[in-house]
């Protein structure tokens, strides 16, 4: 990784809520780097600050102090605007929610295409790419299904397709395997590993699931808003497709 610049760089990042005696330090002096192609796990007990850190990196929560650099762009410097954050989220960040959060009034294809439309794609081009992505994620046959007609795993795959639509350099996932059984959780994690390798994207996954630890390149553990230790353990099991992808 040394020859590559980090896609996500967090330096001395802190976030607190309230003030005086009511002050809560949600994040304290966090330093973290994630490189292209890496899948990083963010673990810790409830209230440890995982989601707050993810929200800061996703540009929906402003840190109290520190520096955040996404794909070479410094975020939250003195000139940032709300529209810039929106553009960053649209262009550079793909987000996979704990629950799929699909728009209930759009079918599978349009749930993916809507992000492309927002990025300026024409309707036909957006739909074509959406269908390609759904096929890539093995849900091409469900492209016309409404969210209520999809199973949990299918809906999560459509949500992943939406997160990938704009070819983001950074993919953030907030407990993406929580609503899934262990077999499906492993499939989703393998899929994320494949995406990281194929698209050279940095993936940060917030999880409680100890069963998928072997799918991470790095694991960052948070406790009381502080980074506890940096586990650099590589995956015991590399996603089945990674070697295939490398050979492609």
């Amino acid at each position, binding site marked *: 990784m040394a020859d590559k610049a980090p896609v996500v760089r967090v330096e001395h990042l802190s976030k607190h809520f309230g003030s005086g005696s009511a002050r809560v330090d949600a994040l304290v002096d966090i330093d973290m780097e994630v490189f292209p192609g890496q899948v990083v796990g963010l673990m810790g007990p409830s209230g440890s600050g995982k989601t707050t850190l993810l929200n800061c990196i996703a540009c*929906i929560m402003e840190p109290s102090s520190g520096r955040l650099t996404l794909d070479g762009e410094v975020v939250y410097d003195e000139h940032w605007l709300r529209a810039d954050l929106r553009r960053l989220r649209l262009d550079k960040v793909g987000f996979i929610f704990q*629950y799929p959060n699909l728009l209930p009034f*759009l079918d599978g294809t349009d749930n993916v295409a809507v992000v492309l439309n927002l990025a300026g794609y024409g309707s036909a081009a957006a739909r074509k790419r959406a269908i390609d992505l759904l096929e890539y994620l093995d849900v091409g046959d469900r492209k016309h299904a409404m969210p209520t007609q999809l199973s949990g795993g299918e809906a999560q795959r459509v949500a992943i397709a939406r997160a990938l639509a704009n070819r983001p350099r950074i993919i953030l996932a907030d407990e993406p395997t929580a609503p899934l059984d262990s077999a499906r959780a492993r499939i989703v994690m393998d899929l994320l590993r494949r995406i990281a390798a194929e698209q050279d994207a940095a993936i940060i996954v917030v999880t409680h699931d100890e069963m998928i630890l072997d799918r991470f390149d790095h694991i960052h553990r948070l406790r009381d808003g502080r980074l506890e230790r940096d586990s650099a353990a590589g995956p015991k099991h590399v996603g089945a497709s990674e070697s295939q992808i490398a050979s492609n």
Partner: protein
Amino acid sequence: MNLAYRDIKHNLLRFVLTNFGLSLLLGVVIVITGVYGGLVDDALKQARAANADLWVVEAGTNGPFAESSRIPGDTRELVSRVYGVQRAGSVTYQSVQTELNGKPLRLYLIGYELGRPGGPRTLIAGRDIIRSHYEMVVDRSAGLALGQEVPLGTHGHKFTVVGLMRNELTSSGDPVAYVTLHDAQGLQFELAPPAARREVARGGAGETNDQINAVIAKVSPYVQINEVSSALSRWKHLTTLTQEQQENLLTKQVIEKSRRQQLLIMVLLIIVSAVIIALIIYTLTMDKARSIATLKFVGAPDRTIVGLIVQQALSMGVVSYFIGLGLVLAFQPYFPRRLVLDTDSIAVVFSVTVVMCLAASTLGIRLALKIDPAEALSAAG
């Protein structure tokens, strides 16, 4: 991709039911507009039906519609002799109530001289009055048929319906009926037998019935109306009003209070409609809060969110407006009052609906813009 359309399509039943309710509300607004238009139109029609250039009435009065006016029957001959008067006719106006088939029937009776100005203008069925007694031309809203006999007056003389008119109503909605001047005078002054006997006993039976409410004058096209009006005003026992003055009296005095009442009801209904639309839009936006948060999270600009809400509000208003209009037009013949819905008033209500929807959507827009993208991260609802 039109998100508003997709959302409507997805919740079509809810959209249809909401629109049906809203269309009834907007239908009531359109009805009130029609009633308002009908009120003004009927009032003006009363004066315009006479096709007069000048109205000669009792001195110091604004008769015959705004105030009562009584002048001698020979006034018409005096007026006819004035230079510039082409034709003149005596008229009387009175409200009568009778009973037909056990139901009350109210008529606004106009007495006129056959072959002179002041009679019915356009018939939709039957013929004009040709006999000097007991024939009647009536508006079809009275529910009378040709050949039907209607008892009128204290002696219960039966008047035969010989002609029917359309849309000849007073501002209070009573159908207009025309009879000959003599019949009208008889109905106005004729006493019931006991009252007549008492009148004879007190020696007052010799009083003449030849009194009228106004004389209608048509002025020659070669003479200025004002010129004739000044000539007539030299008679101190008479007042002369031009057609324009008569119309002003009707709209500014006779129906002014009713007009204001209708206007007030209309404004209140528009406010109620706006509040209801605002609440519907607000509720629909609340239902979509998670979708809006997700859209914001993935980078949708505010204009996309605002567009979604405004388009839904407008489509709801416009669709409901046309359903409401369709319902009103379909049921118009069954309304107890005449509705006048001209293109202008329909366009005004449409514009008000559009403005109302835009104003009402601001509440939903405010809510939508306040939604934090981070809400998309909360547990699935």
